[in-house]
């Protein structure tokens, strides 16, 4: 299969999450991409910036809007060896959030650090 054809090629993939969960489907469908790229043994980075930091908020309760709470999936990422999660401090600050509000461990970086990291990527998928 393709997986074998690609053996050995490892690229730096980055998923840039800039939107809230639920208001649009992007957060959910990005997770599907992320899980597949892990299966291809790529070097996967997840960035949460702007409203994307809200994807990681603790205590989501979606019964009232009739949609599935998929925030557990972020906790499962570790099991797929996806451990490079970055959040920028400025986006948290603007939204009145702190690291304690987030349901998974992330590296909190400055916008300047995030910019530098982005520039090193081979493939950037954003939503």
């Amino acid at each position: 299969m393709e997986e074998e054809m690609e053996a050995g090629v490892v690229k730096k993939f980055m998923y840039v999450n800039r939107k809230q969960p639920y208001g649009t489907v992007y957060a959910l469908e990005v997770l599907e991409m992320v899980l597949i790229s892990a299966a291809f043994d790529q070097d996967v980075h997840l960035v949460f910036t702007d409203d994307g930091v809200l994807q990681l908020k603790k205590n989501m309760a979606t019964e009232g809007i009739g949609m599935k709470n998929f925030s557990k999936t972020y906790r499962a990422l570790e099991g797929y060896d996806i451990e490079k999660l970055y959040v920028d401090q400025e986006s948290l600050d603007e939204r009145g959030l702190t690291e304690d509000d987030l349901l998974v461990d992330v590296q909190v970086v400055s916008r300047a650090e995030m910019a530098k990291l982005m520039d090193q990527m081979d493939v950037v998928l954003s939503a």
Partner: protein
Amino acid sequence: MKFAVLVNEGPFNHQASDSAYQFVKAALSKGHQIFRVFFYYDGVYNASKLSEPPTDDRNVVANWGKLAEEHKLDLVVCVAAALRRGIKDENLAAGFRISGLGQLIEAGIQADRLVTFGD
């Protein structure tokens, strides 16, 4: 009171159709009348009977159809917007009908309030 509802986004990509559905249910619970739900722009995708969401999530298309059956709702899909986007009688979900934009204007005239969901 008589409400008309306009849904302008497709299912899944935006929450608009979900919010409209919750609004309609709440209005019915309070004894209001729903004159018509009209689907325009990408909203016409809500009427695709081929839509098969994951079984552990809500089924937007089926939910509208069930609500329409229970409460005799008039769910109307704009024919011009639908033709462009590939929604026709052959893939139209149960509970919906395809008709002209005049049905939206008529809803605006007949209903006491028109409430729009989505861009």
